[in-house]
């Protein structure tokens, strides 16, 4: 049985909305609004949702790349929300991030070798020679050539740059990697290569992933468990099989039915959702999904549902299930 690596407790991340000359604080964008879940060692937890649902803010808040507004994040049992700079630096050796756009996350004036080696340098790992060896070895592992150490980011294709982004995250041997839309900017033929690489590395390095994406087909392919987010909250969390074969929350159901399947014979029963995602500045009262829900009831407009356990260890936040 794998142990808990990360425990997130009632995490909130609000961004202030200001107005006027004095930047008065008038409201909050509630990007993440009370989220709790765990990430086990060596598992992939998929986090899926549409744009603006708070999935990226959540990913960044867990690594404290953004300061959480409230709540706790425990890493191996220690509350990292109270940690200072020195301790956070230690955390960076354990927990890394892969970004969506490798173009903007690599310094254009640094060679690939320096970009990756810099991580080791900052943490004071190895001599210059050892660092170079480590970088070369890792570059080969992610499918690049040793001579790429001398190249600059603009000389590489999108897929190659993402390989560098992955190498950069793995060079310190982390235990947790938050991958924020790592394949969304790539073409499908290259996307498959990178997904394979990400999954192979997980076995080799014993990694736990928090894999963030809006693409359900991708998340279904890589994840052990999947959390579905809507307007700053997790509305369903289940293992992959449960979620895809038998979604409980009406939003999950609609999301799944909106996935375009590459099969022209499949005439889908589509649950087309009306309307759009409401603003996270003023989320609707009661259940946040009630304005678009096809199964809305009276209680949904008044009381917000709580994420509750159901059979099979899955969680759902919906009044339909009491």
């Amino acid at each position, binding site marked *: 049985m794998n142990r808990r690596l990360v425990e997130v407790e009632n995490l909130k991340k609000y961004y202030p909305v200001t107005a006027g000359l004095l930047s008065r604080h008038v409201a909050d964008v509630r990007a993440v609004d009370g989220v709790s879940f765990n990430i086990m060692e060596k598992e992939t937890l998929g986090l899926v949702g*549409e*744009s603006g649902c708070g999935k990226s803010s959540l990913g960044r808040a867990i690594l404290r790349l953004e300061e959480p507004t409230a709540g706790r994040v425990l890493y191996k049992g220690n509350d990292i929300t109270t940690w200072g700079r020195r301790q956070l630096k230690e955390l960076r050796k354990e927990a890394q991030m892969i970004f969506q756009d490798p173009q903007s996350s690599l310094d254009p004036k640094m060679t690939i070798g320096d970009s990756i080696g810099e991580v080791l340098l900052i943490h004071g790992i190895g001599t210059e020679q050892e660092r170079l060896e480590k970088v070369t070895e890792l570059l080969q592992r992610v499918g690049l050539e040793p001579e790429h150490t001398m190249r600059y980011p603009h000389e590489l*294709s999108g*897929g*190659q740059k993402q390989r560098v982004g992955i190498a950069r995250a793995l060079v310190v041997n982390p235990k947790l990697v938050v991958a924020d839309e790592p394949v969304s900017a790539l*073409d*499908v*033929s*290259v*996307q*498959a*290569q990178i*997904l*394979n690489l990400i*999954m192979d590395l997980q076995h080799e390095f014993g990694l736990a992933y928090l894999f963030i994406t*809006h693409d*359900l*087909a*991708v998340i*279904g*392919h890589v994840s052990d468990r999947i959390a579905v987010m809507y307007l700053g909250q997790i509305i369903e969390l289940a293992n*992959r099989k449960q979620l*895809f074969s038998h979604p409980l929350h009406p939003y999950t159901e*609609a*999301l*799944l039915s*909106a*996935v*375009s*399947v*590459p*099969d*022209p*014979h*499949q005439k*889908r029963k*589509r649950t*087309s*959702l009306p309307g*759009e*995602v409401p603003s996270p500045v003023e989320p609707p009262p009661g259940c946040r999904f009630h304005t678009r829900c096809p199964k809305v009831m009276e209680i949904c407009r008044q009381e917000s549902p709580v994420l509750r356990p159901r059979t099979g260890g899955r969680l759902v936040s919906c009044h339909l299930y009491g």
Partner: protein
Amino acid sequence: MHHNILEIKQLKTYFFTRSGVVKAVDSVNFGIRRGESLCLVGESGCGKTATALSILRLIDSPPGKIIDGEIRYHDEDLLRCSGKRLRQIRGHGIAMIFQDPQSSLNPVFTVGDQIAEQIRMHLKLKRRPTMERTLHLMEQVGIPRARERMKDYPHQFSGGMRQRIMIAAALSCGPEILIADEPTTALDTTIKEQILDIFRDLKQQREMSILFITHDLGTVAGIADRIVVMYGGRIAEVGTVYDIFDQPKHPYTHGLIDCLPDISARSDRLTSIPGMIPSLIDPPDGCIFSPRCPRSMMVCRQKRPKEVIVSKEHLVACHLYS
């Protein structure tokens, strides 16, 4: 025999850049029939957008130039008609919508004005009937409270609503052909489905021909009658949606379909196409896919394959079939 209302023959569009001549569209042939939706599929840089822009002569020049070919619309060659005639055809005969509605709408005019502008220009209607028609169009594409919202500016609309406005503007003069370049790529899953429904309705109600450009095979399966697969500025395969998905002939089409993650089953590895998308400056001799092709033969590196008819509607450009 099917009647093509638009026929593209031997189209060559090159871009003259500092690093060399990019053969973005390199001898492309296909036709669009009345009332069909034809999908142009391919990855980034395959020349699909350049093909679409060439049809309406919207290629930026310099650096781009249409070198050769013919674009037959009824009895005219669009590449050789006068500027005045071309302006009549744009909007009136053939209309186009783009991927990013944000940048194709003018931020300082109300959306009503922008739709009305087209109607005034092309149909020369008076003020009252122009407004009536604008209102009707906005209602048709599903913009709620259209009468009030006509007076709003683009930034007051969400991405999905802006795309609806672009569609309304494109439809304003009742075009025969609608060219849609990645119209759903920037949208969220649930919103994308709403927009695709509009396209399906349009095709049915108006018998309009749609040239739908996308990289997403899932979308293609749900909307296409016929498919043109492009790779490296050339056509790889043409066929009905069933031909392409059930019996893909070209190894590239095969690869493209196989490398999609399957939502219903977690397999350990995705099939991927090795290598990366070729540069269109100095493409290899022979078949442009040969460096990545698992079934590449001697001849593939020497001779460019001709298009071969494999069944009634199904064409493939590959030496395996010649």
